[in-house]
């Protein structure tokens, strides 16, 4: 079976936007892959004028939020860095047990890479500064800039959601058959972690190949 990979367009977000953006994207993908009986729940983003759909499963919501929390902790330790979250769907296959291998293995059939560039928004100088030049109304321009930036992020997020919809529509053959009584295909969410040996190994491989450290891509 093919493993289809979708690299989502990179989003430039600020720290406080991470949670909403990730919830929106992760839940949208999972909703397209929860082919059992679900009770869709519309969720309005607070920061953007976008409504996305959740599966209405409290456990799923909790698992996704936990992963997002871990990611946010990682971002706080690695500020101003590009990062990637991988949502993978797999099938569990049993295989011949041996001394060195497990009885089951995971066959990944789909991987989604969510690319984020978390930036710190530059703060405007205080008007109390001695060296500040006369500014007519710094507050107003800051507000305009903020809302213009917000509109750009919203448009980019919308593009990502359409990218998900297109991918789901274009590639259907690799999706495993639906099993009766099963709501979700098994999935895992991988986030970068400085303590993750697998992540570290991947970095070393990239360094050997490219000669300089790069993030997952």
């Amino acid at each position, binding site marked *: 079976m093919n493993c289809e990979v979708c690299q989502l367009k990179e989003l430039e977000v600020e720290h406080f936007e991470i949670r909403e953006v990730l919830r929106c994207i992760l839940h*949208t993908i999972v*909703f*397209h892959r929860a*082919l059992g009986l679900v009770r*869709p729940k*519309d969720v309005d983003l607070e920061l953007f*004028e*976008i*409504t*996305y*759909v959740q599966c209405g499963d409290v456990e799923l919501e909790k698992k996704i939020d936990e992963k997002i929390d871990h990611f946010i902790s990682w971002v706080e330790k690695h500020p101003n860095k590009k990062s990637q979250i991988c949502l993978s769907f797999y099938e569990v296959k049993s295989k011949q047990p041996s001394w060195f291998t497990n009885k089951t293995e995971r066959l990944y059939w789909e991987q989604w890479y969510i690319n984020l560039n978390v930036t710190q928004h530059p703060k405007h100088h205080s008007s109390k500064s001695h060296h500040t030049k006369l500014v007519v109304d710094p507050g107003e321009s800051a507000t305009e800039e903020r809302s213009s930036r917000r509109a750009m992020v919203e448009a980019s997020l*919308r593009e990502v*959601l*359409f990218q*998900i*919809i297109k991918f*789901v*529509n*274009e590639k*259907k053959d690799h*999706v495993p*058959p*639906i099993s009766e009584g099963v709501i979700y295909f098994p999935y895992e969410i991988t986030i970068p972690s400085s303590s993750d040996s697998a992540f570290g190994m991947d970095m070393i491989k990239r360094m050997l190949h490219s000669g300089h450290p790069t993030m997952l891509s």
Partner: protein
Amino acid sequence: MVQFRECPSELENFYLCRQSNFEPVVIDVILEQKPLDWDPVTFSPKPDLVEHSSSKDKNSFFWNSDQEESGCEAKGEKVIERWFVQHESRKGRDCSSGSRRSSSNNLSALYKKLLLLLRSLYVTFRLLPAYKIFRDLNSSGQIRAFKLLPRVSSSDKSFTQKDEAEMQRFWFTPVDTSCGRLCLSVLYRSSISDTSSQSSTPMSPQFIPDYVGSPLTDPLRRFPSLPVSQPIDRLQFLSHHPQHIQNHMLWFLTQALAVRAATYELTSSSSWGISTS
């Protein structure tokens, strides 16, 4: 033929009149600006406007049905979404061919693909600009100067060049069936002028002595807010709940899924029920 339940009368009539299941279904979501002389309390045209109207009946203020034949948008109407649903037949192929096992496998694969299509439809509805208007209409406590209307037909009336320039198209990947393929696409306005700035009238609190169920009323009494000759049907309801338009589109696909999902162990070699004419 796929049967429908709880279908609005317009959609039901439309399907009864269809010559064939291969005709496209075109569903327009229309943003209608109410006439200026509109009584916000009774939702009806003011009497002097009705007297001066031409041969149009009162209903044309609601549906502009006479404009439909001319193929152009009536004044104050704007098509903000146009959905195309069509099953294209595959000529020269026997739909009933294939073994029982392959037929069953094909059905389960088809079910999966239609389900994926349904999921992406569900998400797409909420991303299109009309959804925001729908939410505004439903959440606001004010009477708006516009409303959303459905229009179902089998012909694709062309837009003006200006309108086309404002619209974007999104194609859903066609789903192969045993007799052809199911095609779905939408043409939508990528931006709609801010309807929240449209004039609106706040609903003034009024004591309604003759509310439905009131001991003062005759339970069979008709209320003057709607034309007496027009039965209160689902189409009226739809104008205030455009999400039901989307639900019925989904119902079209859902019905097909429900019928076949219950017959996985298909014994006959009949084709998928979408096109059986």
